[in-house]
């Protein structure tokens, strides 16, 4: 597992002012080591530390201390200094031991983690990589978090942009603040660059510790299993009534997810972006699972470009790191319209289809209500190698809703109401899919947790390999 605490600009800012380092030749090597180490530990000096605190931020070392288990940090490269020789940077007073970054390894709840600050493409898919943006991060440096699996930000104090407001103004004459251009709100709600934002440094680091517990250490490790106090056979009576009788009425998919998850805990990824799909981590009987669900509350839970990409990326992460995937389906279809077609919904929708299809981790799917047409197929259907596919009694697996279907099949005919009733009778229920074996069982909603826990136990030994390839060519 790798973790980057990013603050490239602020960090170097911190060291701009000098605290002179005298290299005094008559000191013993040991003394020199000690002095250099001490200097490194206080970074740019108390004044700079105070300035950082005043900005509502912590220093790199304080952050590492908060993030890791007590006394577990083992620093490396503490003596590295910059080698810049222009504009007076070569002067001794502009040089600092442990310059700009603090790197090393430590433990979170006893599990190994590397803290670093450089992007590492080769590590992608080998160990989970998380970036936490805790200050301004601009220019090429933004690709460091962009290449990691998850990017989290601190509200009000962190920014990410390729070019800052001044350059934007000079090039496009656009007036924009740092916050609007690349603040936490922008990236978690508009651009989808960041996966979540936290209130402040402390909140972010404590949540990161919590999040870390969901993840395996590497692609060679199984998803972690923690001690669980929540009975795996717990019934969830509330689920029997959660799907409203009117098929057009919304409900909150999060109610289902929290209902079935251990201790109602769900660590949502990208909660404010493409809200028509919900993705995140939970535990089932102590075991980490990734959950994907359509959200009927937002845009009827339809799939569009952003939600497809959001879902696909999450599914691929889970697959890369041995995390079983639970999929809750209530999807009326792909969002129609020119903006979606011109935007390439075909290409982007294919990503989600591709991701589910190639995934070899255990895949359990629950159809809670609508599962229409192509969108049904995409949402981890049996046709995409789903291991266990369930339907609730309220499920409707069909090519589309009754009204739309009847309008097409019986175009121009007068007795459409009658035909609609017939269509509802025939298709707006789980039977046609069950008869064909597309769903393995029709289950009582309140038993969903029990069924999933049992299936996960069975599927824990699942081994599936895809044909050899250099890498698959996901439709980017």
């Amino acid at each position, binding site marked *: 597992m790798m973790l980057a605490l990013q603050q490239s600009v602020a960090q170097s800012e911190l060291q701009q002012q000098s605290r002179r380092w005298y290299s005094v030749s008559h000191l013993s090597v040991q003394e020199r080591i000690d002095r250099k180490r001490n200097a490194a530990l206080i970074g740019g000096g108390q004044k700079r530390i105070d300035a950082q*605190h005043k900005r509502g931020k912590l220093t790199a070392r304080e952050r590492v201390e908060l993030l890791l288990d007590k006394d577990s940090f083992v620093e490396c490269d503490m003596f590295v200094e910059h080698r810049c020789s222009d504009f007076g940077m070569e002067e001794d007073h502009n040089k600092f031991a442990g310059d700009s970054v603090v790197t090393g390894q430590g433990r979170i709840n006893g599990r190994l983690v590397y803290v670093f600050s450089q992007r590492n493409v080769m590590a992608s898919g080998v160990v989970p990589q998380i970036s936490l943006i805790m200050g301004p991060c601009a220019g090429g440096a933004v690709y460091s978090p962009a290449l990691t699996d998850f990017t989290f930000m601190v509200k009000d104090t962190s920014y990410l942009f390729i070019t800052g407001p001044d350059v934007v103004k000079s090039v496009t004459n656009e007036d924009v603040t740092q916050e609007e251009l690349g603040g936490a709100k922008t990236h978690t709600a508009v651009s989808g660059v960041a996966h979540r934002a936290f209130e402040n440094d402390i909140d972010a680091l404590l949540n990161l510790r919590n999040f870390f517990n969901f993840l395996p*250490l590497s692609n060679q*490790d199984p998803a972690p299993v923690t001690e669980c106090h929540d009975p795996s056979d717990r019934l969830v009576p*509330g689920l029997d*009534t959660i799907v409203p009788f009117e098929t057009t009425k919304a409900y909150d998919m999060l109610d289902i997810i929290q209902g079935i998850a251990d201790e109602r805990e769900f660590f949502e990824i990208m909660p404010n972006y493409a809200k028509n799909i919900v993705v995140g981590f939970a535990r089932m009987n102590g075991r980490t699972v990734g959950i994907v669900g359509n959200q009927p509350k937002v845009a009827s839970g339809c799939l569009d470009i952003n939600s497809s990409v959001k879902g696909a990326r999450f599914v691929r992460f889970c697959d890369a790191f041995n995390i079983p995937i639970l999929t809750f389906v209530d999807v009326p279809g792909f969002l129609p319209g020119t903006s979606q077609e011109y935007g390439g919904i075909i290409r982007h929708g294919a990503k989600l289809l591709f991701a589910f299809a190639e995934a070899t981790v255990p895949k359990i799917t629950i159809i809670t209500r609508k599962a229409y047409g192509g969108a049904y197929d995409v949402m981890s259907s049996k046709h995409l190698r789903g291991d266990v596919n369930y339907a609730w009694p309220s499920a409707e697996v069909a090519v589309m809703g009754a009204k739309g279907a009847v309008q097409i099949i019986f175009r121009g005919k007068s007795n459409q109401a009658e035909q609609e009733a017939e269509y509802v009778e025939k298709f707006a229920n789980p039977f046609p899919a069950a008869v064909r074996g597309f769903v393995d069982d029709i289950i009582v909603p309140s038993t969903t947790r029990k069924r999933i826990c049992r299936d996960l136990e069975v599927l824990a030994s699942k081994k599936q390999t895809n044909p050899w390839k250099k890498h698959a060519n996901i439709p980017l």
Partner: protein
Amino acid sequence: MAAYMITSTLRRVLLVAKHASFQSRCCVASSRVQYSTVYDSNEKTFDKILIANRGEIACRVMKTCKKMGIKTVAVHSDVDASAVHVKMADEAVCVGPAPTNKSYLNMDAIMDAIRKTGSQAVHPGYGFLSENKEFAKRLAAEDVVFIGPDTHAIHAMGDKIESKLLAKAANVNVIPGFDGVVEDAVKIAGDIGYPVMIKASAGGGGKGMRIAWNDDETREGFRLSSQEAASSFGDDRLLIEKFVDNPRHIEIQVLADKHGNALWLNERECSIQRRNQKVVEEAPSTFLDPETRRAMGEQAVQLAKAVQYSSAGTVEFLVDSNKNFYFLEMNTRLQVEHPITECITGLDLVQQMIRVAKGFPLLHKQEDIPINGWAIESRVYAEDPYKSFGLPSIGRLSQYQEPINLPKVRVDSGIQEGSDISIYYDPMISKLVTYGATRAEALQRMEAALDNYVIRGVTHNIPLLREIITHPRFISGDITTNFLPEEYPEGFKGHQLTSEGRRELVATAAALYVSAQLRSQRFLGNLRVSTTPQEQRQWELCVELEKGSHTVAVSRSGSTFTVEVDGVKVEVSGEWNLASALLPVTINRTPRVLQCLSRDAGGDITLQYLGTQFKVRVLSQLVSTLSAHMPEKVPEDTSSILRSPMPGSVVAVSVKPGDVVAEGQEICVIEAMKMQNSLIAAKAAKVRPMDTPPLH
């Protein structure tokens, strides 16, 4: 409408198919109640009864029907299609959309349902059509039995003006007042003398009822009450009477048959009220001596006999500090609080109502009616007790667990986990009843029951209920209907922590935090977790609670934590099950049940302690020190925003664009759960152009 009925029937068929596989979970725990009368299967009453109601009372009635071997029919609105009362019934019929006037008050649809299902009798529950003589008449016309008194008794007692005249004639003590339809309210109020009570002639349950202390309040109260009366009862006539100061509200349960027999089943003390709606009731009353009880009981029976009353009914009295009692009104239905009478008398009132409706004579004599022990009822509402002792709240019951595993606890409810509390109906969650040999025992059980009651997803009034039943004045029995405003003049603020209570709470939170921290280090079957030589045994923490900060040192030995809070040692032990909603612990050898409502990675823990929810923040010393550097986030200024305190519909807008309003001036009126509430300006301002919301 026809099309609607077809779909709903179709849905119903689907529903049955969908839910056929599992038994409905009945939430009425009254099976544990011991009734003295047996359910005599040879005594033939009805084959099938339709219950023209919803929620807990519908479930309550069905419960007895089942014991008597009677098939039940539920009626429901479309939003109630999967409600508990629908699942409990043998058959169910949808009678319309959510608004009550289109469903539960829709007589045409209910009459249709009766015909369709072949129901022989109707139990109306309380509220809705229970005291509607028109409904009773329509039933009679089709030879369907109304389980309640005859039409003329409903008519006579339903009209407060007429009932008062009748009571006078039957030698029942009455309050001085104006016995007629009010036209000039201010003049009448002046004649009687302030304070006066304005109330809906057709009303009940506190709706359309207001107290006025001067002419202005009379005018205002008259306006609001008549609106409320019109919307609740379809009848805007009002009456005015002398308001008895410092009164107790004590009512007598009567039971009469069609053969001229009538009994009084002792009293219920219902003085704890807010906005004239009952909150906590008990039976018997601490205040009545046997003579007063007998006098009240006999007058109640006289009144019942005077109107040839049959079925169960309640005669309400106001009792002043000298034990003078005045007739208030007679409710010709089963009361909400009937379970406490059942507890102390052993009678199943619903069974008696059904028997009487069929024409059977009463089996009991007055001397057979006992007072066995003591019973207390808390009305658990989905409402925010911090706003005027309770403003309705709505939501989905994400977790719900009734304390029915405790001895001598009865919970009458019509909801279950997953149920929605909607704006359409009364926000009552349940009636929590405890009983015991003595009042102290019943009270102690109530405390435990409230602590063990898990309600998540909606705001509820358990904080207030628990404060009331543990209040020294309540325990002493010295109560009046003004108890709440007198004891909480600034409004209810939740449980006030003593320094010991504070330490207990802080210690429990710290122990819970440490338990969670320890668990987060336990991975099963993972070989790559560092083999830490020894588990941490000491924790230095900082616990923040209500703006105070405490230095806390925790040490652990097994499941027992020794927590030093600001130097004082507290010992907390428990199971520390982090998945359970309940947190049973022993604090310094005293067993307590707390509830953990939330717990997050940042150290924020919400605990319910002695009924009230407290937000606690547990931090390591390091986090606590560094927290000082974190920027303070400024909450948005909302003084220029007028926010509805609850969901509801706008029934009146009192200002126009361009008006300058003073602080405290009414801007609009919101109606929710049949109560009208004025929204007032938080500061002086000018009204900007607005889209007038559609008025309901």
